[in-house]
């Protein structure tokens, strides 16, 4: 934008604009129609008691929905579960992803093959991933119980998805398996932009491998890390599909994360007003997370 500052709109620009506008306007109208309009409408709904079951008796309730959310036990319970899910899954994905990226950045035979392989979990649709892990975790016929009992680690089959806290952790495992590869890919791309001379210079100065990683790799990788963490945190915070496939929020609400709670309120009970208010609460949560990341991690990189 900088270079446009100060240039006045000239009469001769109109000729150009006359041709540009008709091409831009449809796209703009489309965006307004599919993003701005629903956004405004949802914000309005969040201030009403709109219930599809009684569509005619819609009335304005102000901040009533938001107050009810703050008083609702379901909300705090699912907020806690979502936070736990997000922290643990993104944390594990980051550690595994960073390790895989550093490993795949080294030169060795078969590296190309492994690099291609690591895309696989990420390329799998989440729904398919959810179904696959549901089968792996199946108490009677699942591969995990079969493996663990054959290796002698467990005597009785474990009902992985049958105990609330265990089920939440099991879903996290499935999510980590799929998404660590996404972080690995992003970080691998970041690693490849770091000039080799920097390592040579560091080695020359006598820096150990660990020190090279902390003093060279990590600071220069920060932008990639930032992008990876922001994207994954936002995704994890609004996780829905893998829960829907694997546990449907059960057992005993053990995996009822925020998105699933919103889905229940909006589409099972048809409380559109309440559901809209919940969605805005989640959006605010995500916004706060994003700001924290950017403030904490964003630094200009200079070589």
């Amino acid at each position, binding site marked *: 934008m900088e270079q446009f500052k100060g240039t006045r709109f000239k009469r001769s620009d109109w000729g150009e604009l006359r041709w540009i506008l008709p091409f831009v306007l449809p796209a703009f109208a489309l965006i307004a129609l599919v993003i701005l309009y629903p956004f405004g409408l949802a914000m309005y709904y969040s201030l009403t008691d709109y219930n599809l079951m009684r569509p005619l008796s819609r009335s304005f309730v102000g901040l009533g929905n938001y107050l009810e959310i703050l008083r609702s036990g379901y909300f705090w319970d699912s907020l806690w579960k979502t936070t736990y899910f997000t922290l643990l899954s993104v944390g594990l994905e980051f550690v595994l992803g960073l390790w895989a990226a550093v490993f795949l950045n080294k030169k060795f035979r078969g590296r190309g093959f492994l690099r291609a392989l690591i895309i696989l979990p990420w390329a799998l649709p989440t729904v398919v991933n959810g179904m696959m892990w549901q089968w792996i975790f199946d108490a009677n016929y699942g591969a995990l119980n079969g493996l663990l009992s054959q290796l002698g680690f467990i005597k009785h089959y474990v009902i992985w998805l049958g105990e609330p806290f265990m089920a939440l952790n099991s879903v996290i495992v499935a999510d980590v398996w799929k998404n660590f590869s996404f972080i690995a890919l992003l970080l691998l791309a970041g690693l490849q932009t770091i000039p080799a001379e920097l390592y040579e210079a560091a080695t020359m100065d006598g820096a150990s491998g660990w020190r090279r990683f902390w003093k060279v790799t990590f600071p220069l990788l920060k932008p990639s890390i930032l992008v990876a963490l922001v994207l994954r945190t936002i995704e994890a915070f609004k996780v829905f599909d893998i829960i829907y496939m694997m546990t449907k929020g*059960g057992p005993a609400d053990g995996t009822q994360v925020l998105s699933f709670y919103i889905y229940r309120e909006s589409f099972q009970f048809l409380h559109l007003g309440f559901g809209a208010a919940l969605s805005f609460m989640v959006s605010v949560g995500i916004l706060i997370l994003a700001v924290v990341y950017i403030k904490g991690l964003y630094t200009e990189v200079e070589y």
Partner: protein
Amino acid sequence: MKNQSRQGKMWLLSGVVLIFMFTAFGLLAAGAFAAEKTTITVLSSDDFAAFRKAAIPDFEKANPDIKVNLISVGYDQLHDKIVTALAGGATGFDVIDVDEIWTAEFVEAGFLADVTDRVTAEMKKGIVPAGMNILTYQNRFWGLPMFVDTKFFYYNNDLLAKAGFKTPPQTWAEFVEQSKKLQEKKLVKYATIWGWGQHEGLICDVVSIFPAFGGRFIEPNGKFVVNNPDNVRALQFMVDLLYKYKAADPASITADDRSMLNSFIAGDVAFGLNWSFAWGIIDDPSQSKVAGKVRLALMPGEKKKSASGAGSMGLGIASGSRRKDAAWKFIAFLAERQQQKNQAINYGALPIWQSLYTDPEVQKKHPALAEMSSQLKYAVSRPRLTWYSEFSRVLQLEVHNALTQNKSPKQALDDAQKEIERLAKKYGNK
């Protein structure tokens, strides 16, 4: 000069594009008018979708001006699919599949068209009341039942004989006794598996077990009694089956009526609750290891002789449909005696016509008509509330809290009672 010719070209291009678009739209519109056929779209559950699909060619032959487009989804997706499709009076679907627990909700939301004037005197007289009731609300008719159904008690007679039992359990206490014996003799690892994941199927089993112990949810005067002592005793029994008697596969907590059926047809368990559609699968040697060994008995009782959760479904017309006449023709066609007979004989469903229960051909060819129809007397409906989804959600959660031993049965049902009373107040006890 150069600039002018560029502008000219642009105008020409725009003109060509416009002409092309108008032609395309014109052709499309002409095509729509040329087709005289009315196409109706039916949204059906997967259960018995095979029968409905097979009936379409016959219907289209009898009604050459109507074309039927049937879309089927799994039961678990059906409610959400209907709600999202019909919200705001959309006209995408003409006929929708309605579970008996949704009637009140859908009518209040304005999703269903009133068909009271279309229902014939013959239908009112000939269709069994248990069926006709499911789509009746506020003394008006909102569709026709397609089959009558409840949960049934299936048992593996082969395993029972090996354990030395000549008859299936008649009470839940006997059920535990037989289960223990079956497990002691190592005939099965667990005597039964239930579909007790946190979903609607759990409530269908709850209304099969709670009433047998004398329990109920609503008093005749409309007061909720979710935590009455009989219900607590029944829930304690369910918990004990898992942890004290260890007579049920612990995986029950994650199962639904489809996955429990997989264990049953593999011969891994001796007892199981399921709907009538299960019979077609259990008795099919290409799918089931236990075909020919399984029988159907009256659901065990305790205080009461027997009880089983009702789950009939029917078809109604979407209120936004512009093809209501054609839609009704299709519904009425599937409800006809001949079609119902076919559905009973070839797909194992219980027919809606009283007369078909005594029809010699149906009696001869339906595998379990006598057993099934004697269970119908003990069918228990889930509460009819416009806010049933929320009622069920609370009950599912609290029953699950007991089944996963998060709470004692008493505590769980006390909490359910409190939350349900709050909801009832919010919705004006409707």
